[in-house]
């Protein structure tokens, strides 16, 4: 019986295999690149005004709710209207170059466009008020905002990450009066967490139901 395959056939097979692997790898890279989030964890975003939480929260000690006033009552914590900025900045640093866009915006009556740092897909219906009411601290999801000169995302905000808490809320809950505290740490989180789950009357049976976040 003669030779079935030509001697050069082996080369062809190798080339074809290489091409398949290379194109698959390219495909994966293209797919990863095109579906990646617009910005990563710990990566500050360029904003129209270099607003510093570090300065306002860390140095000046302004409460979160002074600006994010709807956080206890609504789904959306609220981005402060320019009038809130102007309560101080009509007097302070009025000539600072960094503040020029704010002053201009106020004078001309044209709103600022901030880049959103924490964005969720449209099919997720996140509600700040219920998390605050049930003792989830700001710092648990947003990190040490009081140390951020420019704001960045501190946590993945993926569904897996959400479920870590929804499946075991006792690991993260804190007393109601410590929610806005950036530095608080529990002495014994497990014991306190279990007590808080009962205290807040959290129905853990439904906490990982799809309907809690998706509609």
């Amino acid at each position: 019986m003669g030779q079935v395959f030509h001697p050069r056939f082996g080369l062809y097979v190798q080339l074809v295999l290489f091409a398949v692997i290379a194109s698959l790898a390219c495909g994966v890279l293209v797919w990863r690149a095109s579906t990646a989030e617009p910005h990563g964890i710990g990566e500050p975003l360029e904003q129209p005004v270099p607003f510093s939480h570090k300065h306002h929260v860390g140095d000046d000690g302004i409460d979160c709710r002074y600006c994010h006033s709807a956080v206890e009552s609504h789904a959306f914590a609220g981005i402060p209207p320019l009038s809130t900025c102007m309560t101080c900045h009509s007097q302070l640093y009025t000539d600072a170059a960094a503040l020029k866009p704010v002053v201009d915006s106020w004078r001309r009556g044209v709103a600022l466009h901030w880049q959103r740092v924490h964005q969720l897909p449209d099919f997720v219906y996140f509600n700040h008020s219920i998390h605050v009411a049930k003792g989830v601290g700001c710092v648990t999801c947003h990190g040490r905002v009081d140390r951020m000169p420019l704001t960045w995302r501190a946590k993945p905000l993926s569904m897996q990450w959400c479920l870590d808490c929804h499946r075991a809320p006792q690991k993260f809950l804190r007393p109601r009066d410590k929610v806005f505290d950036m530095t608080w740490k529990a002495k014994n989180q497990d014991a306190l967490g279990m007590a808080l789950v009962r205290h807040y009357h959290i129905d853990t049976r439904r906490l990982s139901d799809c309907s809690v976040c998706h509609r």
Partner: protein
Amino acid sequence: MSATPATEVAMQALRQRMGDAQGPRFWRALEELADDAHWRETLHAAMPQLAALAPMDRRRFLKLLGASLALAGLAACSSPPQEQLVPWLRQPEGMAADEARFYANALACAGDVCGVLVETHMGRPTKIEGNPAHPASLGGSAPALQAAVLELWDPDRSQTPLHRGVPATWDDFFAELAKLSRGDGRGLRILSGAIVSPTLAAQRDALLQKFPGARWHRHEATGQGQALAGATLAFGTPLQPIYHFDKAQRIVALDADFLSSMPGRLAHARAFAQQRKPPRMNRLYAVEPTPSLTGAMADHAWPMAHGEVGVFAHHLAVALGIAGTADRAADEKRIRAVADDLLAHKGQSLVLAGESQPPAVHALAHRLNQALGNIGHTVDYVAPMDVVEPADSLAALCKAMDAGEVDTLLVLDANPAYDAPADLGFAQALAKVRQRIHLGLYRDETAQLCDWHLPMAHALESWSDLRAWDGTASIVQPVIEPLYAGRSAHQLLAALLGQPTDIRALLQSRWHAGDDEGWNRSLREGLVADSATAPTHPSAVSADIPASMPTADDLELLFRPDPTLWDGRYANNGWLQELPKPLSQLTWGNAAFISPALAAQRKLANGDVVELRLGGRQLRAPVWIMPGQAARSVTVHLGHGRRHAGHVGNGVGFDAYALRSDRSPWREGGLQLHATGEHVELAATQHHHAMEGRAPVRAGTLDEYLHDANFLHADEPATPPSLYPAKPPGEYAWGMAIDLNACIGCKGCTIACQAENNIPVVGADQVRRGREMHWIRVDRYYEGSAQAPHTHHQPVPCMHCEHAPCEVVCPVGATVHDAEGLNLQVYNRCVGTRFCSNNCPYKVRRFNFLQYADVKTESLKARRNPDVSVRNRGVMEKCTYCIQRIQTAHIAADREGRPIADGEIVTACQAACPTQAITFGNIADPDSAVSKAKASPLDYTLLTELNTRPRTSYGAHLRNPNPALGDDA
């Protein structure tokens, strides 16, 4: 094209069995009654809608499969866009970004004025609910009211003034108007619809005073002219009856559709349904030539020709001893029984006639009410809002235009070029007018014939005031700035009169001059307190009423407003086009309704095109066989066949105005009907989503119920054991009860659900394939013979089965249960296998076969409810029990650390229902309203034998027939 063989076979079988129907007790289509073999085959096919697909070979299938895989892969390659946050400069008080705000308002819709609450998100109106404080709504809403919000966002709306088709500005027009304002108005005519706004009426009076030579005409294609003429005949002055169905125990409806087309219909429906709670039920007799929703609710519905209705009323008057003599009635037993029943309920009975009946029948109804002592008890009379003198009619206008007496015609929100009776020759007469100006929402048929077309501001964009049918006044406030360059009729008239154009100030000075508190209260509550018209005490009814004579015509043609499109003004509204018409279940078009007997005689099947000839005019129309239609009556619905409605409404159906005459607007004798041999496939949904002969509807009579309250459950087996896990464990258990005894089949729930849940419109072709997307459908079942059947309506949302058959077949876990008993659909997991839909015995799941949701048109995006995900192609969806409303209430209650109160969650369908047939709540709480409804002995679940344990249950439908009449329909 001839009739399809299958339909032909069905009709042959039907013709054979017409006399002695041996089919099931309850039936949806005539083919089912005839037990047609093809019908059974269709049912047995797992997905009947697939039958409409063209046959496909393997090669083409693989090609399409490959292409869709590749395209789907590409489509998935997009990163989430970087969002921006744009804060307020100064935040208005109480304006949270994510909270719905409701504004009380009023809308004039389909010949009725209703108080509404407009839901807005960030200033965008997204949904309309009834205003519980308003007497014409009481919280309920009709399909046309709900759909007004889609009209607001309709991209086809007129956006800029046009002068001879060229874009112009309002300033150009006002310059033109300034010339008009000189002189005494000779040659100036104004045409509007019926005037239901007191401020518009005042502006009219001011205008006629300033321009004594001008005339103001009114034209309403489906107005109340005959009813007012009837009152004039009876009392010597036009009066409008206000009916009190809460006090009426015996009702005779003479071709009167008080539940779905008379003004005050929502209030009627509420009061009527309240009186039908066993063990106490009222009794309704309906005589009508063509089935209506009122006839469908009747305990005795007798189809008879249009003219026979008057004869019936006359015989009734004779039997009650208030009219002279009459020939012996053919149906003497019925007349006697009805008369005795009425006499036994003096002061608690009611006789009413419908608009389509001639004035003499209306007058006779008033006379009967007087004789029965009902006036002042079950019926009051008030002065009507607008009485059109003959000199102010459209006919007078056409005559004047034809004679060259009209120099300028200003058309305010009317469309006579489409909806004028054909014999008036409006378009030809209009051509003789020098200056023609049209103000309207759309560049419609009339706008096409005018030099100037001006965009009108939508009712939700402008200030106005309206009076409801009982005279209750409401302030209409804008809930959004005009989207386009629209202005209201008030603003236009103010400019013409040289008045200030601040309509808000005009309204406040009219209703609450100098009283800001009262003004704010009226705005907040949606009505001006104590503004209802006081009833007048009419003089005795004239005894000189001409007796109705039976007509000798062979065939008669009846005109009716379309149940959803009304006179055609809503033709460009996709929701209303796609909503299956009550009773016929037709969508996207109209048909000539014929009786089963006429169909058998002329060998016609559904969809066969006939030519209707009347006088010198003719019209081609497909026929639809309507059970319960009088044998020799043919009904056509107005409002279709628009030529310039917009992208949605153009050319849908046929234009029945072409046969209408001014002299006899509702009925014409001497109709000739000729088969053409052509056939079209109508988009009807009555065959879709059938649950086969498994008795989905349970019905009985009041007597049966009083004899044994459990009569429906007599031979029901005990709940069988199940392999499924026990009940979901949550703190709450959501459930729904639907009272079939209260459901009038208006389909307000379907449209409310569509608006709330961002449900797309799919179009006629997709509906023909059985792909309509409505999450709650209203099935219509017939019982008994095809000539005079009993009708049952059954709204069917998802049953939220505790042991859901859909869940076990999903390969990707896209449909799962939550702890509180909701059967969830997770859109992001769904890969579109449709196994769940196949395994659903209730056929409530809807699949996005194509990209139905319009994600491109900007204005439609703004309409959507931001609390509900928009579904894309390839995803299954279904009723969620309005999960967004449950979660909103859940979060509010949990935040405050309290339990969710009973009645705190109201689903969209429940809120819209005018008769409160739907109850929703926590069935784990024995004191909740829904638990009490489910405890009724009439309560049953659909297909109990399948052991799915649905959370949705039904209250059986009861009739209260007159014992003296036995089983006489």
